[in-house]
């Protein structure tokens, strides 16, 4: 609590007032000489002044401004013998807080002083609050400036310069600098140095642990040093070189992600002032912002570099992509061509298989027809011999040449025996019947072949599936007949909208596969039935069956279990495609050692237009 100064030329009053107030617990000092009282005011912590108005050297009215000059916060209570309102008003206008009348009443005095003290307390409290408020505003303004600076520039050096400029003016320092850590050498270098000798300072590099900045860097703690000359950590090298005189300093470490990356220094408060805790706090708070800014700026810088790199990459990438695309297109084209070629190969391979089978089926009848014709020629020659002899007999009969007749009859008989006339007449019928059957077989094969691969390939039509199955069976008969008995269980099915030739190819594949699956001899069953606008075709065999692991790959192109060169591995893949094209599906069920059943389902009408 502050003291109370009583200024009165009358010693009696000084003593009286002093006693009353001392009794009330106040600490009181007194002054008889108004001018000497001013010196006391400067030295002592005075809260309230009791001031007499009528004094010889200087009147109370004169004293009020002078007291306020020394300390504007002191509450002045005037003591006046005049109970004139005018003098009181005058005093209050000059800055007095209250008045008491003379002669002094104890109660009035106590009340006035208590009130003044209370007022003083409130006043100080207010001022402190106001100061705090102002400080907050100042900081807020500072941060606003900072964030503006941060957002307005992303160049780190420019940014730091701006920040330092703001810091310097806010803290009211003579010099202000940012030192950043050179991670390679561990030294600090001046990134920004504002102040009288700023440019010269920039030449310096601070070694680890050197000077205040070095200490702060090593310890990661801020320092506020009132008198640098008394601090052993101070490094005077810079001052010596530049001629600048460092007196006081605040140095705060800059943290970026828990790592000290630099130090902010402010040196010498302007107008010989002192740095205080508030300055340190401000600077500490600011360094947080600065660190973020540095981090941001560094990231931005890194981003810029990355971006430039990315730009470069994307440029390269574009050309790489273009190149790769061209390569892929070429590869794709090649694959497509290869695929087309393979499809062709499969077709040719099927055709080759077909040709071999058909050749067999045709060669057999052609073989015996040709041979039979040759034989027939001989038969006719033999017949002619018999006819000749018969003619001779007739001739003898006509001439009624009896001797000649019996001789010729003998000759006829001999020739007939020679040529085996009875066998001939019997066999010639058989020969012709067999040959006719042979030609019929050839005719049928040719007809089925035409059915099998008609020229109107692309034409979609309603077609009798049974006819398709029969003609295909006929063509591959050669492949089947030695392996299996073929049972047809044909149901009552409608004609199906399809590409008949393509379906024939599928059926041929299934029949040939079925025959290949049978090792010795087995049975192939072809079954058809209709269900809900769909026609089903089942081809079953009693062959070796397909192992489970192969079932999944069965319709994959190029999958084959046949030895190299024997199968293209495309038969079922193509069949699958053909059935899909017909909007149907093909399924397979198989049991190893028992046999396999392929089921094809075809919609009676293809839905596509």
């Amino acid at each position: 609590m502050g003291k109370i100064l009583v200024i009165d030329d009358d010693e009696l009053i000084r003593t009286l007032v002093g006693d009353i107030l001392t009794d009330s617990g106040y600490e009181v000092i007194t002054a008889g000489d108004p001018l000497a009282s001013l010196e006391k005011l400067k030295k002592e912590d005075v809260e309230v002044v009791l001031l007499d108005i009528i004094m010889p050297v200087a009147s109370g009215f004169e004293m009020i401004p002078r007291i306020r000059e020394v300390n504007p916060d002191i509450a002045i209570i005037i003591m006046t013998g005049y109970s004139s309102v005018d003098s009181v008003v005058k005093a209050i206008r000059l800055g007095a807080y209250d008045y008491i009348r003379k002669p002094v009443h104890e109660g009035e005095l106590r009340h006035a002083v208590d009130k003044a003290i209370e007022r003083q307390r409130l006043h100080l409290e207010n001022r402190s609050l106001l100061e705090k408020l102002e400080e907050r505003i100042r900081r807020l303004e500072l941060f606003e400036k900072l964030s503006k600076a941060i957002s307005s520039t992303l160049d780190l050096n420019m940014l730091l310069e701006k920040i330092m400029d703001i810091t310097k003016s806010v803290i009211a320092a003579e010099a202000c600098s940012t030192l950043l850590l050179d991670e390679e050498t561990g030294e600090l270098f001046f990134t920004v140095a504002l102040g009288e000798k700023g440019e010269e300072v920039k030449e310096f590099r601070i070694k680890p642990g050197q000077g205040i900045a070095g200490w702060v860097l090593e310890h990661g703690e801020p320092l506020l040093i009132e008198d640098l000359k008394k601090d052993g950590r101070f490094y005077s090298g810079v001052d010596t070189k530049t001629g600048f005189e460092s007196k006081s300093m605040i140095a705060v470490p800059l943290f970026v992600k828990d790592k000290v990356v630099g130090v902010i220094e402010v040196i010498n408060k302007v107008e010989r002032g002192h740095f205080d805790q508030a300055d340190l706090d401000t600077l500490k708070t600011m360094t947080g912002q600065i660190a973020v800014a540095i981090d941001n700026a560094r990231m931005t810088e890194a981003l810029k570099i990355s971006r430039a790199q990315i730009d470069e990459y994307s440029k390269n990438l574009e050309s790489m992509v273009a190149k790769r695309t061209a390569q892929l297109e070429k590869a794709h084209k090649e694959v497509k061509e290869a695929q087309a070629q393979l499809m062709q190969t499969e077709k040719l391979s099927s055709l080759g298989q077909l040709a071999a089978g058909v050749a067999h089926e045709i060669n057999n009848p052609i073989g015996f027809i040709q041979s039979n014709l040759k034989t027939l020629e001989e038969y006719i020659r033999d017949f002619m011999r018999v006819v000749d002899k018969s003619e001779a007999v007739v001739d003898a009969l006509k001439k009624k040449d009896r001797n000649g007749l019996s001789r010729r009859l003998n000759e006829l008989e001999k020739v007939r025996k020679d040529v085996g006339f009875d066998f001939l007449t019997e066999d010639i019928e058989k020969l012709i019947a067999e040959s006719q059957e042979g030609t019929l077989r050839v005719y049928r094969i040719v007809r089925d072949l035409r059915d099998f691969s008609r020229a109107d390939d692309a034409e979609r039509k309603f077609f009798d599936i049974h006819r398709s199955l029969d003609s295909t069976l006929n063509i591959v008969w050669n492949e089947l007949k030695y392996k299996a008995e073929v049972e047809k269980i044909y149901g009552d099915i409608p004609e199906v909208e399809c590409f008949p030739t393509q379906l024939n190819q599928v059926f041929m594949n299934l029949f040939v596969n079925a025959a290949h699956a049978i090792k010795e001899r087995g049975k192939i069953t072809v079954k058809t039935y209709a269900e809900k606008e769909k026609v089903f075709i089942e081809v079953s065999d009693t062959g070796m069956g397909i192992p489970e692991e192969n079932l999944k790959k069965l319709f994959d192109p190029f999958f084959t279990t046949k030895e190299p060169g024997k199968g293209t591995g495309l038969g079922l893949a193509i069949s699958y495609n053909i059935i899909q094209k017909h909007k149907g599906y093909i399924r397979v069920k198989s049991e190893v050692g028992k046999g396999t059943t392929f089921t094809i389902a075809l919609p009676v009408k293809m839905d596509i237009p």
Partner: protein
Amino acid sequence: MDRHTILCVDDEKSILSLLRRMLRTIDCEVLLAANAQEALQQFQDHTIALIITDYMMPGMTGMELLRHARHISPDTMRILMSAYTDIQVPQSAVNEGEVFRYFTKPWDNNEFLCAIREALDRYEDGRRK
């Protein structure tokens, strides 16, 4: 010279008929078989000078039949017929000495008959030695 016995094997009846017709001009006994099993049965009951068999037949193929025949009756001459255009199998058979001649269908009757006569001569020669 005894009448020789010729065994013809084919699953195609018409071929058997035509062989019988062709062999009409040769003084011989003709036996017919529709498959390998039947043919092998004939070896049990007859001394066969010449066997003429089709290649592709149900069950045992003509090649297999001829191999068996060679084992049972090494002197018997062997002729193979085939409608197949793939001549690799019979060709190797000829090269390995399994068959005396190989004919593809359709054939020339005269050529075939010449081959049959030649085969019978060989058979005769073999027996004399």
